[in-house]
């Protein structure tokens, strides 16, 4: 291989056949912000098509949780207000699955960041916002399918709602709202941790955060100080609001926070988004510092 054995462009590809590469400039910025976002989403969804195992893993955990807690604890634990324990547990499982979703966001982001894919995106003439919005939309689509499969599993186990379709949809909406606000947390963490292994370590933090909540048992059954923390946990508000909307046992102890779960299931995610979305966006912009 000497420096003289160069090839001409004609050898590489037939010049006449080359695709015209002038970019499509007919559209404005807003159009491309949406189009680029969709193309990033398409990429994420193709992952699931290429690796169905990924879906199995991501859905396997919540399904196994539902089965495990439903059957193993379902018999032993008594619902505080006499209702079915399974009916109490299921909305909690849904909320827990939404809460753990931030891990998937964080891992996806740190994988792209550490492999240089985010830098490639940033060096391209695409809308920079699409890197973030594409991730978010992708994760919300996945969250919807997670909820659908979980609800079907729960239904097969005897979980029922008795409040009608509108209230049930509202419950799912609140669950998605929780997932939405945690996307920002996931993006921020994904940009902060050095690699995917470190992101995996976040489970150590995430697990107690979901345990100390009303997901599994009512806070009133915990020691006072712990119960207060659990009651004020945003996941508890979403779980309780979902229970209420599904017409499942709520097990409120009458405290302000537990009596206002519907309100707080909206307020908490908005507050989390208000704090973490700007932090995540700032962190993303700081990649160019």
């Amino acid at each position, binding site marked *: *291989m000497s*420096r003289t*054995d*160069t*090839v*001409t*462009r004609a*050898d*590489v*590809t037939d010049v006449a*056949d*080359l*695709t*015209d*590469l002038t*970019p*499509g*400039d007919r559209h404005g910025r807003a159009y*491309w912000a949406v*189009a*680029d976002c969709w*193309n*990033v989403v*398409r*990429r994420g969804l*193709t*992952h699931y098509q*290429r*690796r169905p195992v990924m879906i199995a893993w991501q859905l396997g955990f919540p399904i196994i949780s539902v089965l495990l807690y439903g059957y193993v604890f379902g018999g032993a634990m008594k619902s505080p207000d006499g209702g079915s324990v399974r009916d109490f547990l299921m909305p909690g499982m849904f909320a827990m699955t939404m809460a753990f979703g931030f891990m998937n966001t964080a891992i996806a982001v740190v994988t792209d960041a*550490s*492999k*240089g*894919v985010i*830098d*490639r*995106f*940033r*060096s*391209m*003439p*695409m809308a920079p916002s*699409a890197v973030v919005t594409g991730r978010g939309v992708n994760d919300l689509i996945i969250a919807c399918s997670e909820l659908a499969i979980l609800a079907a599993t729960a239904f097969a186990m005897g979980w029922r709602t008795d409040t009608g379709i509108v209230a049930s949809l509202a419950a799912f909406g609140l669950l998605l709202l929780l997932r939405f606000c945690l996307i920002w947390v996931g993006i921020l963490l994904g940009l902060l941790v050095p690699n995917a292994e470190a992101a995996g370590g976040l489970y150590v933090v995430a697990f107690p955060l979901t345990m100390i909540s009303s997901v599994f048992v009512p806070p009133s059954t915990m020691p006072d100080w712990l119960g207060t923390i659990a009651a004020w946990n945003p996941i508890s508000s979403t779980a309780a609001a979902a229970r209420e909307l599904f017409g499942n046992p709520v097990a409120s102890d009458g405290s302000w926070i537990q009596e206002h779960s519907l309100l707080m299931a909206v307020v908490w995610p908005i507050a989390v988004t208000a704090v973490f979305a700007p932090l995540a966006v700032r962190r993303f912009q700081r*990649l*160019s*510092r």
Partner: protein
Amino acid sequence: MDGYAVVAEGLEKRYGDKHALAGFDLAVQQGSVHGLLGPNGAGKTTAVRVLATLLRFDGGRARVAGVDVRCEPRQVRRRIGLTGQYAAVDEVLTGRQNLEMFGRLFHLGGRRAVRRATELLEQFDLVGAGDKGVGTYSGGMRRRLDLAASMILAPDVLFLDEPTTGLDPRSRGEVWEAVRRLVAGGTTVLLTTQYLEEADRLASRITVIDQGRAIADDTPDGLKDRVGGDRIEVVARDAADLPAVAKAVARVADTDPTTDALERRVHAPVTDRVAALTDVARTLQEERIGVEDIGLRRPSLDDVFLRLTGHGTQTTEEAA
């Protein structure tokens, strides 16, 4: 600034009080391969990231493909390709899916993105692997896919940040071949490397960078002349044979050989490396002179640094 695809003047980039770039100058001729040569931590990646609009800079000016980097980053992005230190491709998707995805994100539209992906798979010799997951690719294939993705818009300027670091020799050859083809197609390439040999093989001009500053800018030959070029080296078994060894080496050397009696070593610069080696080996064998070692030594980045700065490459800190 006609005729230059990349021009940087006095670029400054500070991290705290550390100067990653300290008045960095660069001029890359249109249609050439330009080597940016320096040890770990010299500022190569920082320079490339600034020029590729990934990193804001604190001072100086830069134009890429005739566009000001600071004022019109979006226009710059339309005219450049970037291949970073790691192959930035999606591991889960196939090679073809990667190129199509990036093509759509380059705003080619669906149909043209598909056509372009096919063209690039052919051009980079990846047709057979195109529909396999990138996770199964070898390092060299991944790099070529990475290059293909940077070439989707057939950019005017391509930045390659250490494209062969960590590759085995065969993959390295594949990447070099791909780079040569790109230049034949008219793309200007700025290539960073820690290997003098790589810069020598690919680049028509080399800028040596040290501690964020360009300390030399020359042709590969000019640079090697300053350092001394290739040398032949013979270590005699017996110090008594040194004069005979020196005579054998003198027949092929460009200048008088240097004899290092303490290490029983004779060395001299040569031009025709292989002929010189064969000739000396044959002479020594015919005259039955015992030899402990015989070989050719190419000047390394270390030699360049020693000559240009008076210190080796070790003194520069490790990279981020």
